[in-house]
């Protein structure tokens, strides 16, 4: 078991190195000099001053050093938690921007991922091989899972916030709210959180329900299910066993689906002007604030790697076969 987890850990370390390298190399591979772009924006008339400013910029971004040294310094500052400085929100460091935005994103994402997984699986298991439920639930599942996250958010905002006035249009709390740990403010936060959460939750739910429904049908057609039925086991028991077996691929699926849900959270935040990472990244993109984009990318990578590792550990706990297999020496 430790060998299995160590192997996984190695893969994740490798992924992290690859991601950091990509993150560093993209600006270097792209045509054009970012400092020249910056110079173009500030438009200095005097050529001598311009040359000085240019040299200064080159030095402060370490662009005058040989490539390998630039790469080395990138790692050094990364280890120190330095992700650069935002151009748009000068002089806030990127790391503090991320730390301020991350709680909002995580507050949306984590409950949405876990609850949609749980509810979706339950619904899918209920629907499988039950004609009426299958025919009513399944089309909804397909519609939801095929819906672009941002469009669902847009429709929710338009219908529930703007037309019916049932929820706030956006932001994490009302502009008049006084921040503090009291019931009024927490209620205000929840009130603003509900709609973006629902938007993420429902779209993700559709995918899980369909996946589970299909897996249960596979399981119910397998030999052990038929055998149990032939022995006269009650249908409920057979379905219970089928559900447990079908749950395993869904645990793995959780790791695979992370990327899509995160992308969904980013665009949902944009629609709701919810001040999380997605909103920050949108502002950074429209204002060409590259360090923020790169920093958020690294933050997301680390988050995904940690989540993957947690899922691996859960898988080992849930599936006894991996434990026995591991002890037998198979990886």
């Amino acid at each position, binding site marked *: 078991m430790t060998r299995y987890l160590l192997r996984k850990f190695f*893969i*994740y370390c*490798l*992924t992290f190195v*690859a*991601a950091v390298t*990509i993150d560093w190399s*993209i*600006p270097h591979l*792209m*045509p*054009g000099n970012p400092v020249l772009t910056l110079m173009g924006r500030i438009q200095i008339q005097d050529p001598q001053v311009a040359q000085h400013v240019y040299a200064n910029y080159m030095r402060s971004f370490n662009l005058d050093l040989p490539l390998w040294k630039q790469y080395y310094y990138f790692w050094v500052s990364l280890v120190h938690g330095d992700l650069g400085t935002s151009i748009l929100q000068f002089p806030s460091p990127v790391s503090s921007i991320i730390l301020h935005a991350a709680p909002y994103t995580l507050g949306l994402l984590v409950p949405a991922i876990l609850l949609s997984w749980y509810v979706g699986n339950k619904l899918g298991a209920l629907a499988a091989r039950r004609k009426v439920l299958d025919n009513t639930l399944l089309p909804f599942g*397909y*519609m939801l*899972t*095929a*819906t*672009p*996250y*941002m*469009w*669902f958010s*847009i*429709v929710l*905002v*338009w219908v529930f916030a*703007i037309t019916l006035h049932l929820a706030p*249009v956006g932001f994490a709390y009302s502009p008049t709210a006084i921040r503090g740990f009291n019931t009024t403010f927490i209620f205000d936060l929840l009130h603003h959180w509900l709609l973006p959460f629902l938007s993420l939750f429902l779209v993700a739910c559709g995918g899980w329900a*369909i996946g589970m429904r*299909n897996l249960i*049908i*596979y399981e119910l*057609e397998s030999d052990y299910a038929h055998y149990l039925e032939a022995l006269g086991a009650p249908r409920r028991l057979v379905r219970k066993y089928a559900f447990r077996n079908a749950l395993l691929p869904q645990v793995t699926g959780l*790791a*695979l689906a*992370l*990327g*899509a849900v*995160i*992308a*969904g959270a*980013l*665009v949902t935040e*944009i*629609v709701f002007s919810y001040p999380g990472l997605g909103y920050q*990244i*949108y502002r*950074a*993109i429209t204002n*060409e604030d*590259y360090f923020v*984009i*790169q920093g*958020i*990318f690294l933050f*997301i*990578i680390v988050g*995904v*790697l940690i989540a*993957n590792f947690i899922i691996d550990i859960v898988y080992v706990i849930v599936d006894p076969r991996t434990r026995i297999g591991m002890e037998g020496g198979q990886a």
Partner: protein
Amino acid sequence: MSTADRTRERPLAPTAGEVATAGEDPVLDEVRPLSGVRETLYFAFRNKKLVFGLVVTTAMLAFAIVGPLIARHPPLAFGGRLGWAPTTREGYWFGTTLLGQDVFAQFVTGLRLAFIVGALGGGIAAVMGMLVGFTAGYRGGIVDELLNMLTNVVLVIPTFALLLVIAAYLNVRSIATEAIFIGLTSWPWAARALRAQTFSLTSRDFVSLARLSGSGSSKIIFKEIAPNMSSYLVMMFILLFGNAVLIAATLDFIGLGPSNTISLGMMMQLSVQNAALQLHLWWWFVPPGLALMTIVGSLYVMNVGLDEVFNPRLRNM
């Protein structure tokens, strides 16, 4: 057991012709595939999900092809009345944007781009997945180890975040570069699935026979192994296609769409930016998302239908 295995082991109801010639191998070889195709088609046309998915997708495709030809205004031209509701006057069938652009023209242009991005991005991802999956599964050993590691690394990286960084640095963006980058990042799960399939087929007798008869690796892969999972490959491509369409729309919505044109994702972005929600200009932001949902949803439904056709156990009896 895998999909492809089930396809092969399907109990074929022998036709009269087959029974008569059952003793003679050469003839049998000619009759079998034909009856297999006929049987598949028989179930295909009776499968409501498959027919529904096919009809809707084809209709949308036809709309994407014909739409730009009948649009009366260029998609990016200004000049219409501002924020018109859908009308028959002056050809603004879907109304106009807040800036006076023709929503119909934008919509059909975006629809066309969605299909192009899906086909190109999904196609590139499928080719990458096949290359990696076939090679890893067939070669095994150290090649398999290395490719597996590569697959795992790309699989774990949240590709959307990666695409964000790449696209943000590209000054001039086109639909082709968007599709290429989507294709180059979304192949891992396909490669993984194909590797497993190839692995199980490689140990079969007919592959060993081909190897004994001196066929080269690429010939064995494309003549012996790939045809045996053709149904699987088709379904994989459909999923990759839908995936590429959704990723492209999300990228466009975040402001990283192609320059000098308009896509469905960009329509949604612009409508949100220009307060179309507050002004209730629903004809601006409802059609693009609805179209994406219809295309991708019908592709998914088609996929389940195909699965049931190729996979008798799943048919609802």
